[in-house]
């Protein structure tokens, strides 16, 4: 079993899901509460990674991150090396890839809030920021946890995008799913099975923790 690959995957998933939460909160807030008629366009863009083949996404990410892409060039200017085939490049591609898994639970959570609570907060003099931090966020805990976990789990299991953008560099971009693929290609089924089983177990435990916690998060505030 390849511990390096496993740790790398966890590191990637942890970085991506936490950065994504920070990006997704304002985006989801805006999408949930804007009255802009064209918001369906942005909603579609956010949902694109759900339906796009990872190789397509990975291909464009590779172009963008490469030495001739805009992002790659900026990166090269700043850090004097390219983004493609690095951990940072992997993070950026994964952010896009897992975006809907963070944004959509948050939108659902924000939209299910009683609008009158937000009205009441405004009438009691609260600014939008205060309403967000004192009312919207505390009441959206389950959505927050769901967003964090889904984007974590989704990043943990990604394959196509990583292969396109990251290649297969041990310790840098060889994530656990690529490691499993390698083992299978080498007909080393026993090793593949060990890693796969471990990933399965971990995924289940993480999800079970979250679902269990989600239920507890609701209960301190009994029905209205």
């Amino acid at each position, binding site marked *: 079993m390849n511990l390096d690959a496993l740790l790398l995957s966890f590191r990637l998933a942890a970085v991506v899901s936490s950065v994504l939460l920070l990006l997704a909160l304002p985006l989801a807030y805006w999408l949930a509460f804007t009255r802009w008629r064209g918001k369906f366009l942005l909603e579609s863009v956010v949902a694109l990674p759900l339906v796009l083949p990872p190789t397509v996404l990975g291909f464009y990410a590779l172009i963008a991150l490469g030495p001739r892409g805009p992002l790659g060039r900026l990166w090269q200017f700043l850090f004097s090396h390219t983004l493609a085939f690095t951990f940072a490049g992997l993070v950026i591609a994964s952010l896009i890839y897992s975006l809907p898994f963070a944004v959509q639970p948050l939108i659902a959570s924000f939209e299910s809030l009683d609008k009158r609570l937000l*009205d009441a907060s405004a009438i*009691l003099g609260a600014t939008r920021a205060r309403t967000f931090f004192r009312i919207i966020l505390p009441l959206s805990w389950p959505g927050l946890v769901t967003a964090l976990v889904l984007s974590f789990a989704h990043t943990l299991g990604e394959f196509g995008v990583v292969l396109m953008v990251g290649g297969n560099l041990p310790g840098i971009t060889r994530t656990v799913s690529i490691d499993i693929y390698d083992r299978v290609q080498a007909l080393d089924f026993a090793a593949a099975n060990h890693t796969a089983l471990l990933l399965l177990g971990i995924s289940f435990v993480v999800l079970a923790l979250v679902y269990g916690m989600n239920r507890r998060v609701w209960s301190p505030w009994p029905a209205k």
Partner: protein
Amino acid sequence: MVAVAGKVTLPMLSVAIRKEFHVAGSPRFLLDVKETFAPGFTVLFGPSGAGKSTLLDCIAGLLRPDDGVIKLNDEPFFDSALHLSLPPQRRRTAYVFQSLALFPHLSVEENVAYGLSALPSAERRERVNRILPAFHIEPLRVRKPGELSGGEKQRVALARSLVTQPELLLLDEPLTGLDGALRHAILQDLRAWNTASRIPILYVTHNREEVDAIGERVVALINGRVQESGAPRAVLDAPRSIALAQAAGFENFLDAHVVEHRPADGVMRVALSGANCELEIPLGAEPPGAAVQVAIRAGDILLATEAPRALSARNILPGTLESLEPRGSLVVAQVDVGARFTVHLTPGAVRSLRLTTGLRVWLVLKTHSCHVVLP
């Protein structure tokens, strides 16, 4: 209160707004209200869908009217000509929603203190400590809204709004679902508070008992417009439109046409359609021959089992008792006099008169219990 040149001016809310709504599949709705609200209670009365909550939302700044002006004293909250619309945060208005909208994750104390975040913490504590006992919710301080009874929640919602010392108070059916005694007690607290701070209070309800308990000015809103305003008795006991009479709980609506005017007596006679009987009702403007609709409360009709004599009531109609149906603390009787009347009786009256269906009865109606209503 602000003293200006030796005379005291009380805070006045004046509203003159229009707002149109388009909802797919239903006719467009126009809210068109011009009204001034003085300090003290004004009851906004009307059927659901009349635009009461919409009007409050516009005043509070949650909805934006299409055009018009909303002013508290001389300060405009909204003025379409000036492209001015203060956000809700800056209207110094308190608003208690029908749903109350208590913050479920905050304790009673935190809910009440929520609107005081701009104050120094010592003053915040002092104000909360003063308002909690005034609304009898001191012992509930650390509870969450989910652990409160309906009446307790309503008190917390009122306290949370009033602790901010608003200059205008909007109440959207805040006491719905409470029993009479509890409602009365909370109204007492509100009234006591209002004698100390004389601000306009707009109180939305479609409950007649609440109107009577408050007993001050009523503004009847029907289909987005102010139809009548004045004392509760004038507005709700003698409504001039069918919609208002329905909202005010009238049970009997009878088609009739005017037979003759008797100006010397201040009355006119109308014949009920499809029935061989006439009613004497207060004199109206409708000429003889005109079709009218007459509204009569079921509780304003007396029922006799013998032909009454020597009675001041001018309308005595013989008929047949068709059905008796207990409903809560009263019995609803249907009587056919050619036209069909609904009459409210007490169970005791049903027993002592030995009322049964098919019995011959007489309906007794005072002239002034009959009201001509317009479509």
